[in-house]
């Protein structure tokens, strides 16, 4: 019994991986500082307020991370126009027949855990699968909600024009109360998403053994040999035979 032959394929380019990990850091920092801002811990201190700025620092970290999160997101959107086919915005286009048949497949096999009678390797997505695509689209919208509500809350105390661009968001919801609530709920969506996302990455890595986890570090995934074009295969075989001659 032998394993199937796999080929190493470059899937996640460096900007995509940088985006991913910067995003991870930002979400962690933003959530932690966000929790602190929403419900600050009791600080036992005898210092005068003049000599303390601890909560101001927490807020500064939150705002700084928010800017990084925002510009990181913009760079990712830019990369979806110049990056490879796995990073392209086309990969995230949800309204194609292929997307929906793959969606049904993933739902059946990976979410509801049915077994397929005949294994079709074509159903294994090389980049994102369709369920993942939809979850990232949803998360993108939630990220936009966070950005819009966050900058809206920040706008009144900001000196820069950029956060002020979002000042119109607050009146839409009648005031800061609702905006703050939405901002807080959006953070919870990120946390819940992260739980599922991390688990599913482990799940796919464990079941399919294609380097799902490590792909976000090195950028490589492993794809079955017979999915590559014949010509490429022949070329490779020739190269191999020459090498070992």
């Amino acid at each position: 019994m032998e394993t199937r032959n796999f080929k190493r394929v470059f899937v996640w380019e460096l900007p995509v991986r940088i985006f991913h990990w910067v995003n991870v850091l930002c979400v962690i920092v933003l959530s932690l500082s966000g929790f602190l801002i929403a419900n600050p811990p009791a600080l036992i201190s005898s210092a005068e307020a003049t000599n303390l700025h601890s909560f101001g620092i927490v807020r500064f970290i939150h705002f700084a991370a928010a800017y990084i999160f925002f510009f990181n997101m913009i760079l990712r959107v830019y990369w979806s126009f110049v990056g490879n086919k796995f990073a392209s915005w086309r990969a995230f286009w949800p309204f194609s027949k292929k997307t929906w048949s793959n969606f049904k497949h993933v739902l059946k096999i990976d979410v509801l855990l049915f077994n397929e009678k005949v294994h079709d390797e074509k159903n294994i997505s090389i980049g994102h699968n369709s369920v993942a695509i939809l979850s990232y689209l949803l998360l993108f919208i939630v990220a936009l909600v966070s950005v819009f509500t966050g900058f809206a809350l920040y706008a009144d105390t900001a000196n820069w024009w950029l956060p002020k661009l979002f000042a119109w968001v607050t009146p839409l919801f009648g005031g800061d109360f609702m905006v703050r609530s939405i901002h807080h709920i959006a953070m919870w969506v990120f946390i819940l998403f992260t739980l599922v996302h991390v688990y599913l990455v482990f799940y796919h890595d464990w079941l399919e053994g294609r380097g799902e986890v490590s792909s976000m570090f090195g950028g490589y995934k492993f794809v079955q040999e017979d999915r590559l074009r014949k010509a490429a295969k022949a070329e490779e075989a020739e190269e191999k035979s020459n090498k070992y001659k």
Partner: protein
Amino acid sequence: MPTEIEKRDTYYESIIKQGYSRRDFLKFSTYMAAFMGLESTMVGQIAESLEKTPRIPIIWEHYQECTCCSESFIRSNHPIVADIILDKISLDYTLTLMAASGHQAEAAKKAVMDKYKGEYILCVEGSIPLGDDGNYCCIAGKSAKETFLEAAAGAKAIIAWGSCASNGCVQAAKPNPTGATPIHKIVKNKPIIRVPGCPPIGEVMAGVIMHVVAFGRLPQLDRLGRPKAFYGKRVHDTCYRRPYYDAGLFAETFDDQNSKNGYCLYKVGCKGPMTYNSCGTIKWNNGVSYPIQSGHGCIGCSEENFWDNGPFYERTTKIPGFAVESNADTVGKVAAGVIVGGIALHAVGATISKRKELSDNIKRAKSNEKNIDL
């Protein structure tokens, strides 16, 4: 447009007739300039304008309200405000303070509305019930809606006093049995100044109305129709306890040492960080104090739905559509728990359902292991 030309007293003439000196008048103008956030060179303009402008008739309607706005207004820090603007000189109709009553009062109002059509200012205190054909609030045999629409039709501008007229306030809180509605949702074709607060600060009210009468135009409004001069900043951002917030020094309860030290009331539910008002700068009772200075958190009375925005003494993030007791964190924690449980179940289920695939994978990989060419 006025149908007859008649000599109306200017504000200055009215003030002098009331027995105030010119010195009082100038002090009053200075106060007003300060409240409106104008620079000192504008004092002259206000004084000049009050000297030349004939008084503008004001109709002040009361609907579903508690009259706290009127109370606040007549206590604003310069007596001229109450005497001249509100008292017999300018105010042509107000249920609380006018001398006339019954048919006479209604007739007087009708006369003003006809005579000064398109000129008078309509001040509205209170929300208007739209439920059950508006029967929950009737004055002189007419529903509030009917009276309001009639008065609004000929008004030059409308001022919505207080949270009732601006946002609906307590009577519009869920379940809003009378269908209480703020006025900007009823009349759309008139300039409306919203002056929320329960009540609004007297000086703010004076500032708004003086701006309209002295300059003949509306003050600069924000997107929610509130005067920017008074509602441009959060209470939090103008609060004298703000340094404690930035230092992370908070009162944990109302009777702890931190509270006695005058630390920030953020953790005991102060709504200052979400509330736009002038309490931190103009303050209350002639600048004596304001809630936070007196040791109580802001309750956010000038914000929309302030009765439905969650408890006054807790910092919670209410989730729309959920029960009052649940906040975003509770729901989030429960959801996270459910998801972690679901993940565990899924992992177990996958191990069972995919056992063949997994064992095949392992077998293949093990055979490779054996065949490693060391």
